[in-house]
């Protein structure tokens, strides 16, 4: 059976000693940095990208994926123990997780979160295995016209489901496309927007942009508010959840997994939206909604399962169609390109070992997370006490070394500096940087497809609405924008994000 063959191919790669090692290292480093206050998964992955460039492509991607879900997991630990979400997708875990900890059920909350995440991660990975081949076959049928429209839809969907002003997010996309156009034009060899700098002939590097926007700018923002005294984590008494907690959790885990797997596939969805939606659903369905916010175990189980399922499922659009659905996936896409692997439908056929190896490693990685994290919890708690004033200089130093080491180029370090400045302006102006990064990654491919489509249609732009698949994709994009503009839904969206 093809399905089992694929898994076997993957396991062979993922279970090799070196890849097991990189998976473990990735999950450990991810968790370690995830529990450190003020460092989210995007900054973590951006900071560690350069290190992985020295590995084999498969090992690098396995390690990066491990870092991603490790950081995700570490964020939940801090949410439960000190009411401080490591990243936005564990904000809702704070609500009931921290209350459970204050009721002396910290251990149970951590175990439920870990087991829920493990289950959700396994299910979502299985979904990737099942749906990747048909989606890939579909994507292979796409010509340049369909591809261009698909990318338009991907970018639009990513901003529609994100927070904040739609208009600004669209402007950020356009700015990302403009930045992506910098460098030598592939077709004619002309220098574009290089400001006469020979260092820009190959375009702006992906790593300096990501680090500048997500690491450097974030540090300046965090320095605005003086650090309070570090909070004492709640003590852990006993790990094992009670029979009643188990009984309440498992349906919540199932629902959370379902919601996360579905929303994760959508562009712009991923972990954040999944956890919010799962919490809301759980509260609506509960017969005693008043328990929520006071330490309801379902309020931990559902969002934790959902954010892990969402995190895994967001790999589907990237691996099958080459469309990154959020900022972390854009970083993964960038990492693949650095290794000479163009994300998209051809990966599965041309490089099956890499494709299936990476996917099956997610199972192993999720299992490792549970095994390493519960016994090591005391170490993570100790790390929670590291003050930010010692952390940010270290982050800055690692970013500088990382960017410089890519090409031994001081120019790229200066680029990171410039994007740190721009990124801080974005934060102040309330502009989300993620759409910019998505557009920057997709931009050159969009231009390529646009050029080919226009060549085929002899310069007639109506080709995009005459081809049925392309028309459907564009209509869907228009529909999504209309949805956000409809006043009733806009209000609902604001409420959903505030809750």
């Amino acid at each position, binding site marked *: 059976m093809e399905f089992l063959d694929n898994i076997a191919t993957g396991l062979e790669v993922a279970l090799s000693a070196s890849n097991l090692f990189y998976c473990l290292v990735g999950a450990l480093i991810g968790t370690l940095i995830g529990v450190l206050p003020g460092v989210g998964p995007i900054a973590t992955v951006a900071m560690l990208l350069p290190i992985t460039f020295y590995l084999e492509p498969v090992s690098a991607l396995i390690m990066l994926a491990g870092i991603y879900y490790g950081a995700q997991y570490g964020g939940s630990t801090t949410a439960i123990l000190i009411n401080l979400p490591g990243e936005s997708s564990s904000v809702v875990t704070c609500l009931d997780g921290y209350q459970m900890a204050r009721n002396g059920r910290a251990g149970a909350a951590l175990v439920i979160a870990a087991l829920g995440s493990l289950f959700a991660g396994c299910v979502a990975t299985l979904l990737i295995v099942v749906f990747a081949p048909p989606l890939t076959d579909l994507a292979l049928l796409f010509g340049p016209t369909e591809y261009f429209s698909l990318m338009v839809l991907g970018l639009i969907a990513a901003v529609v489901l994100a927070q904040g002003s739609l*208009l600004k997010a*669209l402007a950020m996309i356009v700015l990302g496309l403009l930045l992506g156009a910098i460098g030598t034009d592939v077709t004619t060899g002309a220098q574009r927007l290089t*400001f006469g700098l020979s260092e820009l002939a190959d375009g702006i590097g992906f790593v300096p942009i990501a680090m500048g926007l997500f690491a450097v700018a974030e540090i300046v923002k965090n320095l605005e508010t003086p650090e309070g005294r570090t909070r004492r984590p709640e003590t852990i008494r006993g790990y094992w959840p009670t029979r009643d907690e188990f009984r309440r959790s498992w349906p919540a885990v199932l629902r959370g997994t379902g919601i996360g797997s579905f929303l994760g596939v959508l562009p712009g969805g991923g972990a954040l939206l999944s956890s919010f939606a799962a919490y809301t659903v759980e509260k609506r369905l509960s017969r005693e909604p008043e328990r929520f916010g006071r330490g309801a175990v379902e309020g931990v189980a559902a969002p934790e399962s959902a954010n892990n399922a969402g995190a895994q499922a967001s790999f589907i659009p990237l691996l099958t169609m080459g469309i990154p659905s959020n900022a972390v996936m854009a970083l993964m896409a960038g990492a693949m390109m650095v290794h000479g692997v163009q994300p998209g439908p051809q990966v599965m056929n041309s490089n099956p070992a890499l494709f299936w190896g990476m996917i099956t490693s997610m199972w192993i990685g999720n299992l490792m997370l549970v095994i390493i994290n519960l016994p090591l919890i005391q170490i993570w708690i100790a790390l929670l006490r590291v003050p*930010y004033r*010692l952390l940010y*200089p270290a982050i800055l130093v690692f970013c500088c070394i990382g960017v410089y*080491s890519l090409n*031994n180029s001081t120019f790229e370090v200066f680029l990171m500096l410039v994007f*740190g400045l721009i990124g801080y302006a974005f934060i*102040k102006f309330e502009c989300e940087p993620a759409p910019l990064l998505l557009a920057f990654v997709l931009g050159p491919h969009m231009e390529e497809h646009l050029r080919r489509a226009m060549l085929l249609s002899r310069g007639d732009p109506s080709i995009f609405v005459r081809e049925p698949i392309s028309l459907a994709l564009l209509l869907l994009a228009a529909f999504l924008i209309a949805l956000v503009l409809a006043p009733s839904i806009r209000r609902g969206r604001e409420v959903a994000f505030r809750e």
Partner: protein
Amino acid sequence: MSVRQLIRTPDVGSGIMFIAFGLLGLSFSWDLPTGSAMSMGPGYLPQMVSGILLVFGLLVSAVGIARAREAVPITNWSWSALILILISVGAFAIAIEPLGLVVGIVLTTLIAIVAGRESRWGEALALAAGLAVFSVVLFAYALGLPMRIWPSFW
């Protein structure tokens, strides 16, 4: 609300920023051949995208002006932290090639610590030394990155 306050609101401020990037893009791609839709020249996409960005900048500003009543000007820019952090990154870039990794790390760490205004000097020096040792061992020896470690005149 005065014009000075207005340009400091997130909406109008970002609108002006988008307009500036759009104009920058247009001015630098102006001389590139545009070509036609069927065979696009190198200037086609940059000019189109810059133009769209300009339009979005105007729209964002217009919305910002229309909603000026409810907008709050940004006041809490932390200029000192921003400038010091940027200098600390710049210091690394300038120091790494002539002076090497160790000096670069120490400079970056110490300047960054001044930006935070919360650390004592003893702590700062210990952190700088620790980061330097750790990075040299990890990056230069374990990962074998080709970098200068000590100043060239040593």
